[in-house]
């Protein structure tokens, strides 16, 4: 069976999501990848090493990828493609939606697993990750958007893939132009890979209080995250957001400070091995999933914790 994976380059490298999806796809059939970005032998090599047989490469230049990547992909997949896997990032969703409308097939979103047994069967989460629904699809191809970290990336020992560069399609009135890119500076370990994550919510009270999170995280060698509420308030950049529409983290320890525990946040961190929550409201839902919950004011508990950790050094 022909399976396609879409992936967009992140910071000059192949994305983690791309490697996760290729790893999954190689168990389902022959894997081709649509790669959007500048591209490099290293990136293509990594895709090959995870099981991709061929890569179609589109460099969007300064064009927003959604429309041209969907057009190029519609051309590239041919008639025999039965399944297309996307990650959940913003560009993945832009391309998946446009491609689906172009091909006249639906998208199954928030997938946790995909199986092939005659047809394609997809298990996805609904209602904030409280229920799993299994759907069979009669569409050809079936387009699936998977949750981050639904699959674990692992090399297959595959060699370099066949790479075909395609020209940027002219999408006429659908074109949008990227005029500038801004990367937020971040220190310390990568949020998605960190073994300790210290996350702050609206309970911090003000943007400058995030310094407490930074200090605690750096003492523990961890990364700092946050809720959508604090991202929307502009206290921290979007790259900090943990949850349904942000990053999915599965660290050894997750420390939630002033976070209520809304299901859209929990879905992005409930895979953590140990969860510690500090919240002044004894009824906060976060306590329902925490291994240790401290009912108290984070503005006293966190500084005490910081002092105690400093005293150990």
């Amino acid at each position, binding site marked *: 069976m022909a399976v396609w994976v879409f992936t967009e380059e992140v*910071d000059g490298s192949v*994305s983690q999501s791309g490697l996760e999806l290729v790893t999954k796809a190689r168990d389902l059939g022959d894997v081709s990848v649509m790669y959007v970005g500048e591209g490099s032998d290293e990136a293509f090599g990594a895709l090959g090493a995870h099981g991709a047989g061929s890569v179609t490469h589109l460099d969007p230049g300064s064009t*927003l990828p*959604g*429309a041209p990547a969907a057009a190029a992909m519609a051309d590239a997949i041919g008639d025999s493609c039965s399944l297309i896997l996307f990650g*959940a990032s*913003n560009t993945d969703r*832009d*391309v*998946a*939606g*446009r491609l*689906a*409308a172009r091909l*006249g097939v*639906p*998208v199954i*979103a*928030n997938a946790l697993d995909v199986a092939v047994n005659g047809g394609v069967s997809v298990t996805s*989460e609904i209602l904030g990750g*409280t*229920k799993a*629904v*299994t*759907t*069979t*699809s*009669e569409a050809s191809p079936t387009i699936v*958007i998977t949750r981050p970290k639904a699959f674990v990336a692992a090399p297959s020992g595959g060699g370099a893939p066949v790479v075909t560069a395609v020209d940027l399609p002219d999408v006429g*009135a*659908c*074109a*949008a*132009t*990227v*005029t500038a890119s*801004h*990367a937020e500076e971040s220190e310390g370990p990568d949020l998605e890979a960190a073994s*300790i994550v210290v996350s702050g919510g609206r309970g911090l009270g003000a943007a400058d209080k995030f310094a407490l999170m930074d200090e605690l995280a750096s003492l523990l060698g961890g990364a700092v995250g946050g809720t*959508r509420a604090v*991202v929307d*308030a502009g206290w921290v950049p*979007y790259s900090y957001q943990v949850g*349904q529409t942000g990053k999915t983290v599965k660290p*050894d320890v997750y420390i939630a400070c002033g976070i209520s525990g809304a299901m859209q946040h929990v879905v992005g961190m409930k895979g953590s*091995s*140990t*969860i*510690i929550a500090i919240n002044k409201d*004894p009824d906060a839902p976060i306590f*329902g*999933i925490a*291994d*240790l919950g401290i*009912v*108290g004011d984070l503005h*006293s*508990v966190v500084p*005490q914790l910081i002092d105690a*950790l400093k005293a150990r050094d």
Partner: protein
Amino acid sequence: MNIAVCVKQIPDPATPYKLDPETHLVVRPDDQVLDDTDRYGIEIGLQLAEATDGSVTVVSMSPSGTLQGIRQALAMGADAAVLIDDPTLKGSDALVTARVLSAAISRGDYDLVVAGTESTDGYSGVMPQMMSELLALPCLSFATHVETTDAGLRIKRQTPSGYDEVEAALPALLTVTAGVVEPRYPTFKGIMQAKSKPIETLTAADLGVDTAVTQCVQSVEPIAARAAGEIVEDDGEGYRRIIELLETVKVI
């Protein structure tokens, strides 16, 4: 600028959602509310329309019910509503929704279509992109900031490592995050005026849209919830419990 804002009426998220055991669909009460995340799209629509002497029409596919959610949108200041209410649309996926809303929007003359990035109840997060393809519009997606330019719009678009500045000419489709603007609260006057604003109701047949769905739900299972652990009241020593746990799991 004449603007269409896509908004959803959804069961109140403060109440637990029930699934129909036979159809596996969410049970929708008569008094559905405006999806909170759509208030951002309405606000940006109102600001752009006010600055350009334009209008805002909210477009929604939903059982009408008491029209509570639609009235909430009109009370914020939208001028009119188009509602597609049709029993054959029950259980529609994002593609059917996109076809229906696109067909309804094509009947008007809009410079801009606005939507949220994902709905609170369904959160497929692809419906607006499908519409942009069907309507042949550029899709300025995941905007955290919006401004007008000579030819169209410029946005800040969320990226994994920060944001991009993206521009497109009008007509266009825009999707907004919850950080983009602070939505206004309806005034008493707004609530009163909403009662007499025009609401056009259409069916799928009026729009000539194919409503067939190609997916079939096999089963719905609960996902095992994490068990709660120990909860302790901070008596000034709570931090010690955290230190002990960090030692036990050997991260310090």
